[in-house]
């Protein structure tokens, strides 16, 4: 497989076409904006937490296929997880896309492993990790939304 088809795996193309959890969230308790000045990508991540658990997560914005598919798969991956589990997943995901993940550890990432091809394209690491950084920002210091 060429490095390009490693990058644009079918799962990524499919999530780019029909991203999951692509909607604003009226009852979110936190949200954050993510921005990549290099390419003008921007997205918003909304979350609703209950105690330590991310009950619901959604996103909207504009970006390349990698950033959009990554946001889509991120929302599917962290829904129902605790903050600590989400943080651990982000750490592993980041090591995957920067090529620093130990061989064999990719399986622990489930579907997120489709982003392994990103490590061949250092400039796209930011695209793949933008939604994760935004999720982290929302969890750490996200603006509490007024209840509607």
């Amino acid at each position: 497989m060429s490095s390009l088809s490693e990058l644009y795996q079918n799962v990524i193309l499919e999530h780019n076409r029909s991203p999951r959890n692509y909607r604003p969230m009226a009852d979110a308790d936190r949200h954050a904006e993510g921005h990549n000045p290099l390419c003008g990508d921007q997205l918003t991540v909304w979350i609703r937490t209950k105690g330590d658990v991310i009950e619901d997560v959604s996103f909207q914005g504009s970006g390349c296929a990698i950033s959009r598919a990554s946001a889509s798969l991120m929302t599917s991956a962290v829904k129902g997880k605790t903050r600590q589990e989400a943080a651990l997943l982000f750490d592993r995901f980041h090591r995957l896309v920067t090529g620093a993940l130990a061989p064999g550890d990719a399986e622990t990432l489930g579907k997120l492993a489709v982003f392994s091809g990103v490590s061949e394209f250092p400039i796209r690491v930011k695209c793949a990790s933008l939604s994760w950084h935004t999720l982290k920002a929302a969890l750490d210091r996200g603006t509490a939304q007024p209840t509607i």
Partner: protein
Amino acid sequence: MTATATAGLDVEQLRKDFPILSQRVRGKPLVYLDNAATSQKPRSVIDAVGRFYSAENANIHRGVHFLSERATGAYEAVRGRIARFLNASSPGEIVFTRGTTEAINLVAQSWGRSTVQPGDEILVTGMEHHSNLVPWQLLASQTGASVRAVPITDSGELDLDAFDRLLTDRTRLLALTYISNALGTINPVRELVARAREHGVVTLVDGAQAAPHLPVDVQALGCDFLAFSGHKVFGPTGVGVLYGREALLERMPPWQGGGDMIETVTLEGSTFARPPARFEAGTPMIAAVIGLGAALDYVGSLGFGPIGAREDELLAYATEQVGDLDGLRLVGTARRKAGVLSFVVDGVHPHDVSAVLDDEGIAVRAGHHCAQPVMRRFGVPATVRASFAFYNTREEIDALARGLRRVRTLFA
């Protein structure tokens, strides 16, 4: 009839002057279509820089020794070469800077801060590169002036009626680009500068995209300042030029202090050298200046007539081959354009387009081109931009069109 014959340049032969063009990228022949970002360098430029460091290196305007005198002579000779290139009245009107960006910042901080008053207006256009917008925003916030922008039409031309309305008694400066880097539009600079001068408005032209494509004559344009960058006109990075009308430069205070820009220095204070030295503090980019001289010699040997004809032909061919592809929309369709083709592909982000083209060995730019207001005007977050130089070929444009078809298939 071949493309080469019609334009009067032997392109196949010329391509051999550019060592970088013969390489393969990702297993394919390099197709370099990112010339508006930076152009490639002919052997003569590379050799001039190499020769300077191998045999001629010394600091300038200082030592009374053979190498220093020779380096000073070579450096000042390029100043004269640039004065001829721009048809300036004298070499004293040529200031070396790091690039267009620094040249514009110099004018903003030296001329601007000593001249612009609260309530004054700085008139720019909606198609400026950030380098001809942000320095004026900074100046406005420092002086209490404001920045107004001439809007652009759907085809990417300046709205000239709006221009006339925006040019008022409060306007102190008109800063506009000769050619838009994001759209390729060639603006009617001479006419707009003339209208501004009727109102007593000082004018600055961003010539970064113009210098590689057409003859730039500052006296014919009638502008007070003009800036361009060496690396876009086949020269080295790290060197640029500010042309300034002598009478204005003479009145402008220093911008940066240091060596080379002084007359006398005591612990109590200093007096300053006359222009252009007043604006060239510190040891400059001597080797890059020497390289720029070689680049202008190279361009001069081809002539802007043949260069322009070649680029017009490439642009027309690309507009036809690429503009007709399904699901592709051109951004910037002005009547007068330089070799820039900006476009978006339906449903595919420009970065993804660029990644697929890159896999075919094709270098284009994807992004906002440091012109975010232009992107906003056309309702797109970014575009793909293919930009041409005289050394590009029809075959390379065919490769671009094939690559774009692959983009459509992959993201269908």
